[in-house]
Structure formats: C-alpha cells, structure tokens
C-alpha cells in the first residue's frame, strides 16, 4: 500500500427527488488498499459506488477516481476500473469462454491477449473443463468468482465490488476473498461493499454508512479500540442503532 490517492470523494451527495440516498460523504482510498464499505440495506452503498464508476451523476460534491473527475471524465474513469455490480451481470446465455471473449474485447484486449488471459483465468478458477458451459448453468458461487475474474481481466487499477459475496456459502466466500487478496497483491485497489461483518475484518480500512452518511472510517483494529468492543459487528450495531432506514 502506498500513499497515492486512488479515489477521493468530497461531500459527494445523491438525491432522488427529495430523498438523500448518499449524504455528503468524504473519504480517500489509497492505491493498493482493500477498502470496505459497510452498511445495512438501503444505506446508500450502491448509490455511492455507481457515482464513482461514472454510472450515476452526483447531485453535488466532488469525486475523482484514478485521477479523473466523475463529472467531466467519466469515460476515462471507465478505462481504468473494473466493476462487479450487485446484480449478477455476465451473459447467462453465453458460455464462460464467450463471456471472457466479449468483455475482453470491449475493453480493447487483442485476440491474443484474450486467449492468454482467458486461459489463465480458467486455470486459476479450475474451470477449464467448463469453458463451453453456459454461464446460466453454473452454481452461484462459481458465477460470482467468474464475474470477479472477468471484472479484473483487463488489469484495471481499481475494482469496485458491490456485495460480491451476497448469498454464497461461507466456503465460497472464503475462496472469493482469496481472489480479492490475489488481485490486491498485484497492486489493484479494491473497493468492496458488504453487509457481512466478518468480511470487514479482511479489509485494510472500513467505512460504515448509516442512512446515507459515512459515520466511521478507520482500520478494523482502530474502530474496535475506538468503540471499546471486540468485533466490527459490535461497532456496526453501535452505529446503526439510530438508523432510520430499514429494509
């Protein structure tokens, strides 16, 4: 981890009508770090992430990702990031190989690059024998791991993961986090939302969102000390007790 700033948000806000989904959040993410974004359902995590990825225009505030401004340079941001949305979004009616080829292709990889990286990806996931299987036929855990690998196929500087382990079993979650660590070790900045508190412990730093606000931001260790508790779960309950939004 370096001190180069990878993501910077300052008073970033999104309103839907009069409803403030993300309320003046301010933070910095350093290059190479695993940054956790915690919050209950409806806290505003996805909204914040979509603004950073150039998918949603902020209502006010500033933000830059990989040095590019979210208002003016969204398309340059897109060249430098990978994104795994909360909703599974590979093509279920294409095979694993076809998905790899398509997403590699639209990120401008060469045919040779697609072939090499694709083979590597399949080997890493142990999916060589399934290369010609339709993605829709895979179990959820495999789908999620595949979606992550495809999101980092083009070697982005930053990867945004929106609840990547939602609904998968603990063993697969563990394997998924291994993939995250491998990517982080290659220098990829990881921005990950979750509502699994144990996963927060795997992050370098975590932020906690409550009702659109960012109420805490520090390393898991510091947060626990600050609140005088033993787990991030306790930290989260302390913070979320006053939350208005419930799902």
């Amino acid at each position, binding site marked *: 981890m370096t001190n180069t700033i990878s993501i910077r948000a300052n008073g970033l806000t999104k309103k839907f009508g009069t409803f403030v989904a993300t309320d003046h959040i301010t933070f910095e993410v350093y290059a190479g770090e695993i940054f956790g974004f915690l919050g209950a359902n409806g806290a505003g995590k996805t909204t914040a992430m979509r603004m950073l990825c150039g*998918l949603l225009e902020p209502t006010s505030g500033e933000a830059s990702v990989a040095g590019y401004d979210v208002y003016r340079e969204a398309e340059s941001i897109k*060249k430098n990031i990978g994104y795994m*949305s909360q*909703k599974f979004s590979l093509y279920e009616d294409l095979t694993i190989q076809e998905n790899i080829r398509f997403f590699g*292709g*639209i990120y401008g990889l060469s045919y040779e690059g697609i072939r090499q990286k694709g083979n590597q990806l399949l080997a890493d996931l142990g999916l060589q024998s399934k290369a010609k299987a339709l993605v829709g036929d895979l179990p959820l855990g495999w789908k999620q791991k595949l979606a992550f690998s495809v999101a980092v196929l083009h070697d982005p500087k930053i990867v945004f993961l929106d609840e990547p382990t939602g609904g998968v079993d603990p063993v697969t979650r563990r394997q998924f986090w291994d993939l995250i660590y491998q990517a982080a070790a290659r220098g990829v900045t990881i921005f990950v939302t979750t509502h699994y508190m144990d996963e927060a412990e795997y992050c370098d730093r975590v932020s906690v969102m409550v009702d659109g606000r960012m109420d805490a931001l520090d390393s898991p260790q510091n947060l626990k000390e600050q609140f005088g508790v033993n787990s991030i779960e306790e930290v989260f309950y302390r913070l979320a007790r006053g939350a208005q939004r419930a799902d």
Partner: protein
Amino acid sequence: MKTILFLLEKEFKQIFRNKALLPMLFGMPLIQLIVLPLAADYEIKNINIAVVDHDRSAFSSRLTHKIDATGYFRLTGFMDSYREGDRMIALDEADLVLEIPAKFENTLQREGVERLFLAVNAINGTKANVGASYLSRIIGDFSEELNQEKRNKGASAPSSQIIVTSSNWFNPHMNYKFFMVPGILAFLVTMIGGYMSALNIVKEKEIGTIEQINVSPIRKHHFIIGKLVPFWVIGMVVFSIGQLVVSRYIYHIIPVGSLLLLYAYLALYLVAILGFGLLVSTYTDTQQQAMSVAFFFVMIFLLMSGLFTSIDSMPEWAKVIAYLNPVTYFIEVMRGVVLKGSNWVDLQNHFLIMALFAVFFNSWALFNYRKSS
C-alpha cells in the same frame, strides 16, 4: 471498429441461441404473411353496388350490364337521383354508388372524355375500396371496348376515355391479395425492426447486463450499431423470404418494378424503423414497458398506414397522421414497385422522406441514450 465486431458476434450468438426468439423472428412473420392475406380476403362477389343513372342511354345501360355480368357485384339499386343512392349507403345497402352523369354517352362521343363519380361506403371501407378498384378496371375495359368498336367502324375520332374520380388504386389483376401481400410484408418488417430491437435492448436493462456495458469504455454509438445491425440483417432476410419465396411461389407475385430499388428502400427504411425501436428502448426500463409503448405506436402505424383503408378516404386529421407515419411510405413504395413498376424518379421523394425519418429517429435516440443516469 473491433469493438463492433465483438458486439456483433455476441449479439448473433444470443439471437441464434434463443429458442423462443427465432420462431418469432422468422416463423411468425411468414405464417402471418400466408394467413393474413387469406383472412383479409373479402367476399369479392358480393359487393353491393347502386347505380345512379342520369343518362339512361345505350352506353349507360351497357356499362351497368357489364358490371352486373362480372359476377363480382350485386346490383342492389338502380335509380335516377343521387339522393336515393346516398340513402342506400346510409342504410348500408350499398358498398358503392356509381353515378353516371346526364349526357354521358353524348359527351363521351363528342369530347372523348367523361367523368364518372364513385361514392364509397366508409362503414365497410375495405370491401368498398376493393370493389372500387375492380370497378375502375371494368370501366377501363368498357372504355377500351368502345374504342375498339370505333376503330372497327373505321371512325377517325380520337379514342375516348372514361375517368373515374375517387378511385386511384392500381390492381390490374383484380386480385385483392396482390394488393395486400406487399403491404403486409412491409408491416412485418416493421414489427421486426421496431419491436424486436426495442425489446432486445431493454432486456439488457432488465437483467442488468447493461450496467456492465455502461461501466466499460465502450462508445455508445458502437453499442448501438452492435445492437441494430443484427436486426437490420434479420429484417433483410425475413423480407427476402417473404418477397422471393412466399409472395413469389404462394401468391405468384412478381414485382413489375426493380427489385434492387425495393431493396435500396428497404435498407433505408430499416435504418429508420430500427431508430424508432432504439428510441422506445431509451425511454423504457422493462420489456413490458417497451412492449406496451412499441405496441401503441405500432398499432397506430398499422392502422394509419393505408394498409387496410386507403388514405384518400381518411379525414384530413387522419391524413396528417398517415403522412407522419414511416410505414405509409414503405407500403406505398412496396405497392408502387411491386404492382405498378414505379421507378427511381417516381420514388425520389419517398427516399428523401425516409432519409429524414432515419436521421430524426436515430439522432433523437442517440441523444437520449445515456451511459449514466
């Protein structure tokens, strides 16, 4: 450019893998093309006609007999005041009223030209319109007969001509299917272009894959080209099967005019109508919404295109809508080229107008297509 190839590859794979979509794209239109003209065929031998004969001459009674003898018409009235004819239309006892003016025979012999007036019953407009087109053919024959007689007698008078005001349909074979098939084919191509393309794009919104596209550096016009080209190709293929196989071998329709011209127009038309589909997709978020919106417009396009009812018999406000409807022009071109042999000079304006539609729909859609919300 390479991006577009990747997009096209993906799109074609998905389309050809979709077991529900393929029959919709290829099977249904062709079945419709075979069934609709049959269903839309009317009992052509029972067209009720009333003749208002102000002339009561040898010519006028010969014409009346000729009409009666064809077997297509049923002479339900023969009177000498127009008011009575009008009443028969009002009572729905006549689909058509043919008015033969006083001194019809006289004028025809002296001046060589005379006009007949034809009133069409709008209640059963289609049947009446078909009848009108038959009738104009019969009158044409009659006029030719008179000329023949004149020549036989060695008369040097110029050949005579009977003009029927109100009917301008051209269907020399007196076959209703000849008139309907090109129109229905035009409409089916519209369904594929305007409907299927909208649904396809919105489907990506609905299942969420569009997010993955929008978060990539893909250029929006690349994405759009990647989406529209497959449907353009499919439109061309379906049209070809409809024109070169179904029309040709089931209905024995061989275009009088240039097939190349027809394809040139189709190519342009598809660009316009795909732009419309794209536009619908930019305003909707689910397939159900897209289907309702597209259905609404496609119905208007269908009913206001002159496919079933001739535009000439529409009220003014409806004519305005008909001429703001791209389908109208395509159907005119189809019928023009296939039945009349219209050429490039005849259709220049149609090309120009369709180019404007294409630019209009596509720029609006491109403007409205957002990679971010």
